[in-house]
């Protein structure tokens, strides 16, 4: 392919992105959520806020990891103020754990509903509210039409939404901008010290609109995401008393 054609195609791609609502970031703006190399997977190299992300967490262990990862993202989203809504039918999130991820738990409002249908109704209403920083909904099943309603709601309000999907068998097509899967990884401590280290996750970006899916390893250290460069090697330590 000649260079002119390549230029033409890249120009067209940029135009399409612009029409789809992805505005390129202003020059010199620091990347928002501190995800490091992961953000390169997104169009224009910026984590898309003001859209809906889908996170898959089939087991309680992955749900805990997803909760931690989401809390890390929320810390960045909520740093300029704004409260956050957490909608679910069976809530198990322990608010004091959010402190470790720099989120004030008293700024999180929990909505407990009885039916799945109400989760989506509340979520849609909440996503229309401009005063919120983010909305998180725990749902099992969502149809394409329902996800489109949520997408329409965020397009005008620019609130970021997170859908936690706890049933991987019902994954269908949705309008969500990205689909994530977070799984816990063994933590590594320096110098083979005993004890449990910083939370470490395998972050799989299964689908991303206009971006490149991929897989990364992240660690939450000192109030920020740190990419793990070396491959995680599981060190079997002799069991010792710690703490």
């Amino acid at each position, binding site marked *: 392919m000649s260079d002119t054609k390549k230029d033409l195609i890249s120009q067209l791609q940029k135009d399409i992105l612009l029409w789809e609502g992805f505005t390129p970031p202003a020059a010199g703006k620091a990347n928002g959520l501190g995800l490091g190399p992961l953000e390169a997977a997104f169009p224009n190299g910026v984590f898309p806020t003001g859209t809906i992300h889908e996170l898959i967490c089939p087991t*309680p*262990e992955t*749900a*805990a*990891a997803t*909760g*931690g990862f989401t*809390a890390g993202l929320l810390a960045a989203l*909520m*740093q300029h*103020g*704004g*409260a956050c809504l957490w909608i679910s039918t069976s809530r*198990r*999130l*322990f*608010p*004091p*754990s959010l*402190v*470790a991820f720099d989120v*004030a*738990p*008293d*700024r*999180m*409002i*929990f*909505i*407990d*509903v*009885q039916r799945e249908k*109400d989760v989506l*109704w*509340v979520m849609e*209403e*909440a996503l229309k*509210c401009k*005063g*919120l*920083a983010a909305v998180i909904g725990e749902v099992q099943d969502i149809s394409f039409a329902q996800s489109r309603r949520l997408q329409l709601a965020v397009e005008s309000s620019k609130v970021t939404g997170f859908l936690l999907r706890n049933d991987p068998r019902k994954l269908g097509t949705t309008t969500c901008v990205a689909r994530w899967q977070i*799984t*816990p990884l*063994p*933590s590594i*401590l320096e110098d083979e010290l*005993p*004890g*449990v*280290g910083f*939370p*470490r996750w395998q972050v799989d970006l299964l689908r991303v609109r206009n971006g490149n899916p991929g897989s990364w390893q992240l660690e*939450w250290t000192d109030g920020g995401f740190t990419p793990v460069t070396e491959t995680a090697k*599981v060190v*079997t*330590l002799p*069991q010792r*008393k*710690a*703490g």
Partner: protein
Amino acid sequence: MVITAANILAEAGGITAGMAAADAKAIVPDLQVIDEIPGQADKLLNALGEWCIRYSPLIAVDLPGGLLLDVSGCAHLWGGERGYLNEIVTRLISKGYDVRGAMADTVGTAWAVARFGRTKPIIEPGKQVNALLPLPPAALRLEAVILERLQKLGFYTIKSFIGIGRTALRRRFGQELLLRLDQALGNEEEPIQLLQPVEPYTERLPCLEPIRTATGIEIAVKTLLKKLCLRLQGEGMGVRTAILKGYRVDGHLIQAAIGTNRATHQVSHLFKLFELKIPTLEPALGIELFTLEAPKVEEVEPEQEVLWSPEGCGLEDLSLAELLDRLANKIGAGNIHRYLPQEHYWPERSIKPALSLKEKPATKWRTGRPRPSLLLSRPERIEVTALIPDYPPMLFIYKDKVHHVKKADGPERIEREWWLEQGEHRDYYQVEDENGQRYWLFRSGHYGGDHSKQWFIHGFFA
């Protein structure tokens, strides 16, 4: 204990106000003494004043124990002054009150005659002096010091000193005596503070034809809200709860109630709340009268633009409050939670629900020890293999799955708060299995032989 009031029977037995309760009981052994509730008499008097508005629009409460009615132009409606006064006094006596009434040109004379007068209660215009002459000086509403001095000098009636020169009276008894005398005689104006009863926040909307459609109800609600909010706006008040009532043609009453998180007088917001309730209203053959009541109103806090928010809390946001109102009216206010830290180490008690959006954490969130992302509402029993006391288990079985513990932190001992409940302490361990999944386990009580029964899983770490 001092007697503050006595009924007619007790007074007949020789008991008067100001007497010690013990003395009174000695005089009348079967005397019934009831404790006085502070402020209740004043409240009752206020209520009586509001009741008296049927006789005159201008009422003032005269503490203690008096009501002033400005009756100009009212008496003829009851067939003259005598009939008017009779009506009021007999109505109050029939309710069981001990009442004396008087009517005169001035407040001072009426006050004096009502309390000290012995002849006719109605003083004809301009005859105040005649009425006052035989009365004691106490009828002039004077201070105790002046009364004592008058008594000492032998002035037992007003007649005995009213003829003395004003300068002499002022020198001996001060300006107050002259002022009260002038007020009683009508030479000095006396302002009274009128009672202004609070009108209930209610609006009515009768309909020409019965309303049967949802659109019709919407228009009715909007009209009522506009009227109510206009009044609230003027008074700086806002609705906390409101009830819409519809009187149906078939005699049934239908109603819908809403509540708000913060006082508001915005028509659009209140309408949105009612809009969610309109489908529950059944008009049947039609609604002929709508009423809108606001039983609970509060002062609206003036909106202030936030210049900068240091912590950027975001909970004061108006749109958030309105969103929560809508959610509360649909799914119930009990399903919306926000948590504040509580000074307890016991995990289940470390948080408490916040009562309102404005409530701030009283203490800081604890950061010292790691806490799991997910907490099970009830700890679940697990099978473990723990060989050494006070060491984390080597492996545990949770939901039929064996987890080999590779790394662990702990124990963190959390004592049960004995002043709240009895039971064993818990030794918490943060453990990581071979897949890197992190759990929060605890052993209830001390390490014992039968340890299979005392291990629990309580949470999942991120």
